C-alpha cells in the first residue's frame, strides 16, 4: 500500500487527533467549512484520486471532506482511518485557510454501516453532500439516505442507466429523505443548455422553437447519457412526446409535428455539436476540439445570420464539482428531463 491519505488514527480518536493536528499547526491557520463532502467509492486506489480532487477544490469551497473506500462484499470486517488538512494561503499576512479531510478504508460489515462508522464524524449542523461514485444497489437503504442533504452522482459512468435512474427515483421518493439529486452529468450539460437557450433569446429565433423538425447531437463515446439528458430537457421544455424509441427516435410536438432525433458518437468534447432545424431555419452549437468556446449560429430565410461565442468551461471534475457546489438548490428540470426520454435509457 503506497499511498497513505494522511496520518493514521484510530476511528474512535478522530476528533481528538484532528484537535491535536490543529494545535500543532500554529495560529496562522484558520479552519473553514461550508459543508461535509463525503465521497464513496468501491474501487481500490480511490482514496488517492479523491484526495487529489479535494485538494483541487477545498481552496475554493471550504469543507470537511470525508473519503470512503469501501468493499462491502469483503468477507472479513476492517476499518482504518487517516486525517489530514488541505491549506491554502489567504491574505498578505501569511495566514492560511484549511479544510479537514478524514479518509476511511472500510471492508465487510464496516463498509455496510456508513451511518455509524462514517457519519458520526460529520461536522455537525453543516449539510452533508454525498458523492456516490459507485453503482446504486437495491434494495435502497432508507436509513442511509436520510442523512444525505445532497446526493451527487454521475450518470455518465452508468452501464445500466435505466436501472440506476429507477433506483435514484426510489431514493428521491423516500418520504424520510429530503435529498437533493445532483447528477454531475446534468451539471456538465449546463453550459450547453445556457448557450443553446441564448440562441432563442431573440424575437426572430424564438418562434422557431415551436417549429423544430430535427435534432442532431454529436457526443463523445462515453457521453450518450449527457446527450440524452439534453434531448430530455428539450423535449420537456418544448412539450415533445417520444413516439418512437427505436434506433431512430421520433418525438411529436404539441401541434402534431414530428421531430427526428439523431445521436452520433465521435471523439472530442462531451457534446461537440448540436443542430436543430425547423423548416425555415437552422441553429447550431459547436465546440471544436480543445476549444474553450461554444460557437452558436442561427440562420434562416427571414433571420439575419448571427454567430456568438461564449465561454465553455473546462469539463474537468474539479470545475463541474465546484460549479455544482456553488449552485445549491434543487434541479427542478432534471427529473422531468430524465422522464421525457425514459424509454431511451435502456
Amino acid at each position, binding site marked *: 500500500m503506497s499511498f497513505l491519505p494522511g496520518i493514521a488514527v484510530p476511528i474512535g480518536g478522530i476528533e481528538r487527533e484532528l484537535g491535536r493536528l490543529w494545535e500543532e499547526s500554529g495560529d496562522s491557520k484558520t479552519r473553514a467549512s461550508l459543508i461535509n463532502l463525503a465521497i464513496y467509492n468501491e474501487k481500490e486506489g480511490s482514496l488517492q484520486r479523491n484526495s487529489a480532487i479535494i485538494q483541487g477544490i477545498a481552496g475554493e469551497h471550504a469543507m470537511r471532506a470525508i473519503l470512503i473506500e469501501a468493499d462491502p462484499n469483503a468477507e472479513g470486517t476492517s476499518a482504518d482511518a487517516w486525517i489530514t488538512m488541505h491549506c491554502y494561503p489567504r491574505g498578505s499576512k501569511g495566514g492560511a485557510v484549511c479544510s479537514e479531510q478524514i479518509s476511511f478504508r472500510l471492508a465487510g460489515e464496516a463498509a455496510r454501516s456508513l451511518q455509524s462508522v462514517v457519519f458520526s464524524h460529520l461536522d455537525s449542523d453543516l449539510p452533508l453532500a454525498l458523492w456516490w461514485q459507485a453503482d446504486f444497489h437495491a434494495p435502497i437503504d432508507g436509513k442511509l439516505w436520510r442523512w444525505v442533504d445532497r446526493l451527487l452522482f454521475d450518470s455518465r459512468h452508468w452501464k445500466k442507466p435505466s436501472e440506476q435512474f429507477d433506483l435514484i427515483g426510489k431514493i428521491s421518493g423516500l418520504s424520510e429523505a429530503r435529498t437533493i439529486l445532483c447528477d454531475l452529468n446534468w451539471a456538465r450539460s449546463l453550459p450547453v443548455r445556457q448557450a443553446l437557450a441564448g440562441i432563442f433569446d431573440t424575437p426572430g429565433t424564438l418562434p422557431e422553437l415551436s417549429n423544430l423538425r430535427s435534432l442532431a447531437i454529436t457526443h463523445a463515446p462515453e457521453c450518450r447519457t449527457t446527450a440524452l439528458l439534453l434531448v430530455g430537457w428539450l423535449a420537456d421544455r418544448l412539450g415533445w412526446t417520444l413516439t418512437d424509441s427505436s434506433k431512430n427516435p421520433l418525438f411529436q410536438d404539441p401541434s402534431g409535428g414530428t421531430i427526428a432525433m439523431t445521436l452520433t458518437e465521435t471523439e472530442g468534447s462531451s457534446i461537440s455539436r448540436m443542430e436543430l432545424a425547423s423548416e425555415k431555419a437552422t441553429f447550431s452549437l459547436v465546440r471544436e476540439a480543445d476549444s474553450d468556446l*461554444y460557437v452558436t449560429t442561427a440562420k434562416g430565410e427571414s433571420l439575419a445570420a448571427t454567430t456568438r461565442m461564449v465561454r465553455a468551461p473546462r469539463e474537468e471534475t474539479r470545475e463541474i464539482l465546484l460549479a455544482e457546489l*456553488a449552485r445549491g438548490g434543487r434541479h427542478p428540470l432534471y427529473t422531468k428531463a430524465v422522464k421525457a426520454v425514459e424509454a431511451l435509457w435502456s
Partner: protein
Amino acid sequence: MPSPTINPLREGIANRLSPEPCTLVIFGATGDLTHRKLIPALYNLAAEGALPPAVTIIGFARREKTSEQFRKELEEATRKFSRTPINEELWASFASSIHYHQSPFDDAEGYRTLAAEMEKADRERGTGGNRLYYLAVAPDQFPVILDHLRKSGLNTATPGSWARVIVEKPFGKDLASAQKLNGLVSEVFPERDTYRIDHYLGKETAQNIMVMRFANSIFESIWDNNHIAHVQITAAEPLGVEGRAGYYDTSGAMRDMVQNHLLQLLTLTAMEPPTSLSADAIRDEKVKVLRSLRPLRGDDVFNHVVRAQYSAGLINGQPVPGYREADGVPKDSVTETYVALQVNIDNWRWAGVPFFIRTAKRMPKGGTEIAITFKSVPRVLFNSTGEGLDENVLVIRIQPDEGVSLRMSAKMPGSSLRIEPVKMDFHYGTSFGKATPEAYERLLLDAMSGDATLFARRDEVEEAWTFVDGIEEAWKTRSDDLAFHSAGSWGPAAAADLAARHGVTWRRM
C-alpha cells in the same frame, strides 16, 4: 406549447430573471466609467453567456473617432480593468456588438441617426425594439440628452418592447435639484423605466444584509431597541480627491457618500421586513426608514454632525498634501472631506438607538462596514464588578474582506474566572473562494431584466436629500465648525466627542 414571448429554454437555468435583448446606448461613452466599469462588466457577462446575443452597444459621445478606434480603446481598458483575463476570440465576438456614434449631445441629427442605427440593430441583430439608455455623463448634460430623446421619440417603446434609462449618481446636489432632475426624467421616462444606479447596492455584501437579517431567525428577533445599543456605519478611504477636485469641492463627503451610499446602507440595516421580495415592496420599507429619520436643522446640526477636512499628513508612511493643497481645490475651501453624524430613527423599532455614520478621505485605511453593538448584559453575575464586559458586536464588512463577525465573551482557560472577548468571523473569501462579480455586472443585468430592486426609487432619493439638505443649509450659516485632522488620522477630536456624548467610542477598523 412554448409561449410566443418567453424563451422556455431559459427556465430553470438561472434563479433570476433573464435579461432581454436590447440596444444599450451609453451617453458619455468615452468617459472613465465606460472604460473602467461598464465595458469590462458587459464583456464578462457576454463571456459567461449571461447577455442575450442580440445585445448591441452603442457608444454615444462627442469626440471624433471610428467604431474601430472605439473598440480598440475599450479593449485596452478591458484588459486593464476586467476581473477576468481577455480571451481574444471572445473579445472579438463581443466587440462586434459595439458601435460608436459620434454626435454632440445637443444635435437633433445625432438622435435621428441614432434611431436609424437602433432600428438597424432591431432588424439585423434582433434587439426587439428594446432600448436601454445609460447616462454616464455629468448631471448638467442630463437635460439636453433627455430632451432630445423625447423630441426624437426614442423614449417611447413600440408595443411589446421597452425603453429604460439608467441614471448615474449624483442624483442632484440638493432636494430642489433632485426634484428638478427627477421631474425632468419623469417627463421623458416613467418611474418604472427609470433606474438610478448606486453601485453600493450591487455589492454582494450589501445584498447579504437583507439575507442575513431575514433568512436567520436569531438576528431579526434581537434587531431592535430592546437589544441594540447603537449602530455605526463607516466608509473610510485612504485616497484623496485624486483628480476629482472640481466635482468633489462642490459636493463634499455629505453629498458624495452620505446622501446615497451610506443612507442606503442605513435603510437596509434598519428597514422592516418587506411584504415580498419585489422591488417596490423592498423600496417601500427603505423609504419608511428615511421618512423616520429625525430631521437635523439649525443648531441641532452642530450638535449631531461633525465636518472636517484633512490637512497634510502621512498615508502608509508617505507624506501627502492637505485637501486645500490639492490641484483644483480653492485655498479657502470649506468643503468637508470628513463627516460624522449621529442620527435617530423615530419609529418603534429604533426609538432611543443612536446611529452613527462617518465617512472620510485620507483615513489610515480603507473599508466600509456596519457595526451593530448590542446592549450589555445586566450588571449582575459576571458583569457585576470591575469594568464590565465587552458588548456583543456584529460587524458586517461591506468591503474589502467582505464578511460578518460577531464578538462575544468567553472564559479564558484557567483556574481563575477571566472573561475575554472572542470573535467569530465569517469571510466570504475564505468560505467562498470564487471571485464575486462586479457590482456593475449585476446591476446592468438587472436593468436589462427589468428588476429595479437594487436601484434607488425617486422617493428614496428625495427623502435622502430632504434629510441632507437640513444639514447643508445649517452649514451655510457658518463655517467655524469645520475641523481639521491630519491625513492618516482617524478624524478630528470633535467626532470622538460626538460619540462620547452617547457613551460610545468610534470603532477601530
